Each structure stands twice: as C-alpha cells, then as structure tokens.
C-alpha cells in the first residue's frame, strides 16, 4: 500500500477542480475559460485514478474512464477553440461578456 493516503490525492484534485471552476466562472477570455474547464477535467482524472489505485486496483475501470476523459477533453478543446476562432472572426473579440446575443 503506498504511504500517501487517499485523502491527499482527493484534496489535491478538489483544489485543482476549484481552481478550474474559478477560472471558468470569472475569466473574461474565452480561451481562459476553456483552460479552466481543462483543469476541472483533469481534477476528475486524478480522482478516478486515485480511486482505482486505492479501492479497486484489480479492475481497470478507473484508468479506462480517465483515458476516455482525456480523449474527450482533447475533442472538446478542439471544438471549443474552433468556435472561438469563428466568433473572433465575426465579432473581433473573445470576451465572453460581449458574446451575449442569446438573451431576452
């Protein structure tokens, strides 16, 4: 059994998630928001790997989930960046406070 307890990993992952969430919620730059989202996804990945290692080491579920999420994050980043580039081309900005046309 590793000497470092599971909680520590969870704390790190939670901290990372909070940092990502904060970034996603408060940053004005769309690319920065995308970064925040990446951070949150990776926090989840840490959790998954940690739970796999400490609770069900015989199954590969946690790792597989992590791999899926990494692939998903890559796809999400690609689509997100493409969207932002398209927005930038039409609106000349990536500031999300200015991209607010879909409202009342």
């Amino acid at each position, binding site marked *: 059994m590793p000497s470092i307890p599971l909680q520590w990993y969870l704390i790190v992952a939670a901290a990372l998630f909070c940092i990502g969430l904060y970034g996603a919620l408060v940053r004005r730059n769309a690319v920065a928001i995308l970064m925040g989202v990446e951070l949150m996804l990776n926090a989840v990945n840490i959790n998954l790997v940690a739970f796999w290692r400490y609770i069900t080491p015989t199954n590969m579920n946690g790792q597989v989930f992590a791999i899926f999420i990494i692939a998903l994050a890559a796809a999400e980043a690609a689509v997100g960046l493409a969207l932002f580039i398209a927005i930038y081309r039409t609106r000349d900005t990536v500031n999300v406070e200015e991209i607010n046309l879909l*409202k009342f």
Partner: protein
Amino acid sequence: MLAQYALLIPLFPLLSFFAIVVLGFNRNKRLSSNIAIGALALSGILSYLIFIQAMGVGADRVLEAAVNGEAPWATLWNWAPLGTSTFQVGTYLDPVSILMLVMVTTVGLMIFIYAQGYMGIQDPAHTDPRYSRFFAFLSLFACGMLGFVISPNLIQALVFWELMGLCSFLLIGFWFDNPKRVYRNGRWTTVGVENSNAAKKAFLTTRIGDVGLFLGITLLSMIGGSTQWNVLYQPETIARLQEMTFFGVPALIVICLLLFMGAVGKSAQFPLHVWLPDAMAGPTPVSAMIHAATMVAAGVFLIARTYPLFAAAGAEGQPSVPLLTVAVIGAFTSVFAASIGFAQADIKRILAFSTISQLGLMFMALGTGAWVAGVFHMLTHAFFKALLFLGSGSVIHGMEHGLHHAHGESHAHVSPTHHEAEMEDAEMELLERVPEMKSWESEPDDPQSVYNMGGLRHRMPATFWTYMMGVLALTGIPIWAGFWSKDEILAHAFETGQYGFWLVGLLATFMTAFYMARQVFLVFFGQPRTDAATHAAESVRSMTIPLMVLAVFSTFVGLVGMPDIVGPFHIGGWLHHWLALVPTTGLGEEAVAEATAPTSLNVLVAGAALGAAGLGWLVGYLLYGRKALPAAGRDPLSRIPVIWDVLWNKYWVDQFYSKTFIALTMLLARVGNFIDRYIIDAIVNLFGGVTRWFSSIFRWFDSTIVDGAVNWLGLGTGEAGQWMRLLQTGIVQNYLLVVFVAIVLIAFLLRR
C-alpha cells in the same frame, strides 16, 4: 270479369287530380279539364261495364257473393291486424253500390263537361284564373264519392267521407277572395270573405255530425268487433249485436243514432242544415255536384248501407227507435226546408232548400221502411237536381251576360260573383246612399235574384226547356222521374198505415210544387224586370248539352222504378227486383219475403200525390203566373205579415245558432284565451323568469369564476414568462454558475 278492377273507378279521378296538381298540367287549362273529364269518363265506362256484368250475373247472386266476401264482388286485402280479426280494405260491390257508381259517374261527367263552359274556357280572356285547380278539386271530390260508395267497411268509408268534406270546403270556398258587403249602421261595408266563411261554415257544421259518425264507428267496432259490411251483414253478427247493451241502452240504438248524426251533418238535415244554403256561394257546378247530386246523397247512402243495423235495433213488435228518429227528422226537415224555400230570392238558395227538403223525404222513406223507395228517390233526385242546379247556373250566366251588356262591356267578366269584387268606388258610394232594403227587394245588379229575372224563356230557350224537365221531375208530375220515386215513398207510408208520414209527404209535395212554380214563373215567364234580364243570352254549347242529357235522364230514369202497372207482364219494378234483397241482408227469411213482395201502383196514393202537386202548381200560377210580377214589384207572399218574416229569416235558425252555440263557443274561446293568456302564460312566464334569474347567476359564475380562472392562468403564465426571461442573460458564465450551484444543491440533497 271486370268487377275485380273496381278499385280503378275512384283511382282514375285521383290520378287526374295528381296529374293536374303535381305533374303541372295546370299550365294548360284546356288540357287539365280534358284530363279530368277523360278520367271520370274512364271511371264511368268501367262502372257501366260492371253494371252490365252484374246484371248478367243477377242481383241476388251479386249480393250473396258480396256479403260472403267472395271475389270479384268483394275484393278485400288485409291491411292491419285488429285484435282477433284483420282490418281489410278493398272494394265492395253490391246492387246498390253498383247503381250508385253508375249514377255518380253519369251525373259527375255531365257536371264536369258543363263546368268547362261555366268556368269560361270558351273565352281565354275571361277564363277563371284558377280553372285548372277547379277541375283538380272536382276530380278529387269524384274520387271521394266513388271511393265512399265502394268501401267495404265503415272505416274506409269514413276516409272517403272526410275526403268529400275536405273537397266541399275547398270548392265552396273556391272564390275565397270574393268579399261580402253588408248593410250595417247605415252604410255598406265589406266584412270578411263570404265564400271562405261559407266554406268554413260547411266544414265545421258537417264536422259536428262527423264526430257522431266517428263515435258510432268506434262503438260499433268496439262492441261488434268489426266494421266490415260482409261481417255486419251476417245474421249471427246482427243477432249478437242485438244482445248487447251500452250503459243499459241497447247498443244498436246508440250506434245507429250516432251514425245518423253523421248523416244529418252530411245531408244537411234539420239541426245541421244551415251550411247547405250558404254553400251556394261556391261555383254552380259545385252546387250541382256536391250539394245536390252526390255528396249530400252520401248521408242517405250511409243510412241505406247500415240499414240492417237500424232495422235490427227495434225490439219485437215495436218500431225501431233509430228508424223512427230518422223518419221524424226527415219528415220534419222536408216540410221545414220547403217552407223556407217559399221566401228566398236567390235562385240557387231556393234549390238548396229544395235539396234539403228532398233529402228529408229520402230519410223519411228510409225511416218508414221504404228502403228501395229512399234509394230510388236519391237516384232520381241526383239527376234532376243536378239538372236544376246546372240550369240555374246557366240562367245566372245569361243574367251576367245581360248585366254586362246593359252596363256596356267595360267590366271584365271573370265569374258570376267576381263582379262584385270589381265594383268601382263610384258604385260603392252610390250603394251607400241606398236605404235599407226590404226583404222582397233585391240589389239591382244581383244576377242570382229571381226578382231581377223574368221572361227568360225567350232569351234562353234551351235552358228553359231543360229546366222545365227538371222542375216537372222535382214536382212529381207523372212520367218524369220524381213522380215515381216520390210516389213510392208515399205509397209505402200509406200502405203500412203510417198516415202521419204520408200526410207530411203530401204536404212536402204540395210545397215543393209551389216554390218551384214560384221560381219558374218568376224566372222564365212574364216580362223581363231588369235590363240584365232583357239582354240575357243563352249559354254556350258545352253547358246546354249536359243540360239536355240530364233532362233526358230526369225524364226517363224514373221508369226503372216504375211500379208493376201491367201486372202479369212485369214491365215495371226492375229497380225493386234489383235492390229487393239488400235492405234485408242479415235480417232473416221473414224480412226477405216481405222485401221481395211485388209492388203495384196504388191509384189512390198516386192520385193524392198528383193532386197535391197540381194544387201547388195552381197556387203558384195564381200568385205568380196569371199576373206576372212587374218590375220592382212586391212579392205577393211578402204581404203576409208575420209568416213572410219568419220564412225570409229562415226561422231565425242561423241567428239562433249565432246567439247561442256560436256565442257560447266564442265565450268559451274568450275564456280559453283568458286562461291561456293570464294563467298558462303566467306560469310559463314565471318559469321563464326563474330560469332567467338562475341563468344570470350562472352567467356571472361562468364569466367571473370559470373564465377568471382560465384567464388568470393564461395571464399568470404570461407574467411569469415576462419575469423569467430576465434570467436569460446570454452570458455563458452565469449559466455555468447556475449549473454548478444546482449540482452542489443536488449533491447536498442526495447526501447520505
């Protein structure tokens, strides 16, 4: 064998009615009258063929077959189950109905042909505008009479009986737009519509009798179980009916009196006679067809048909109460109506009262047991009274012509009485200044008043000679038809010892001769009393030829019932052999033997009747013929103070009815009106008001609560939407925050 096709006889006129009314042949006036005449001619040919066939078979065989319900003389079809028996319709031909068929089609055909000329087909400009309709109605009427005659039961007979009632209503009121002027409060005023009033009066008065007839039929089918002749004429049915009582009274008496009530209404006998004189408002062919020759004879025929019931209503050795009633009513009416005929000015009204009187004689004959004589008189009367009515129509036409000639040709001549409707204002004003007329005066323009006529025998020879044939027949001069039939009635009353009825008959004979002599002398003899009479013209050929045919019949038709004068050679008495067995149907052998006894001329009775008629003619000649009535002269009879007033006012029967029955009816109607208006309507209005009040509450509830809830829901949704849309900021991070908070919240709620 044609008898099984008897159904076609009433069918042809019915088809003609439908052809004219429904198929639109009414666009062509001449075609529609030709259809009507052709249809009736077909019926007539068929009737004659059946008559010839029946003569070949023999009357007793025909009667036996009919009573036993054997084809072809009784053709019956099942119509509806009726308790244990079956209600059957069809045709029923026995000697008397075959005779009636022949008479009705012959007289009817003559009247149809005459009506063409009377309604003015020869002059297209002056043809009656409702010419086609007239022939349609006449056809329907002929259907009613022919159907009535051959009905195999009382119910089918009632259907056709009422059909005739309807047609008489339609035809009496044929000129329903003809107004009546009366002198009231010092001026002439137009009140109501005379013809339509007469039509209503005829319809309602006969309806009173028909209620009795209907009750009688109901009672008969309830107690006797059937109204089929071939059931009623069975001796066992008669015997069973004799046993029965209705509330303690022998049922047959009640039934017969109720049936007689129908006949009283239809044949205009005493209490219900008032409609017939008024019915003269209709066109003259209608008067001849319905109110002289055929329809009023239906009442006599009904009694003749149900005679076995009447005869069976009496107990052993006692006279039958219904028969006595029939005889008394008939005898009374014959004298009563004849006396009114003395004092009438209208040529047609005199004939109308004569008809009532003669019908009374027929009922008296039936009531005294002279069944064959009654039917015989009905037969001869149909011919000569049709002749007289058509002749009077011809006279009226001639007077109309003279009237227009005298006035110049400015008036459009449409029909005899339309003239009044077209009277111009100037003439109306002139009339307003005329003082109230005395009862022996008449309006100078009235073409129907005998006082305006005189000397017409030179102007209208054909009408005069044919009319004389009718008058001689009616007044009972030998050879002419009326003598034989009337003598038969008197002889029977005399020989059976009913001297009271015999004397009444003699009196009626005298009175008939007198009023007819008065009419003939006033109309045809002396000098013309008005310009109209001076310029009167003979009627067209289509009117005079039927008159001649009917005159021939009126002269010779009596010979069929001539008594057995020559004794062993049996020249006379054909009718008696033909009809002998009918009245005794179902009554047993004794009655049969009595009925088939040979008849012979009773010289004493015939002489007395002839003497009475001659006396009547003599008095008429002395009063009206010897010294002709001068123009604007006073009727000699009117010098008799009280009696003239009584007769002129027709014994005030109409006035009595209008003061009592009609006033009572009007009072009842007013009471009913009051009840309807103030009690029933009040209840209805109360319910209506309450309902309205409730509904106003419900309306408030509906519009406020129900609609309010719905509206509030819609408005609330809208408001909520207005408010909620503010959440939609368009800033992605706000949404993300919400999602985050929501997930935290859910996680918090789902914690363990």
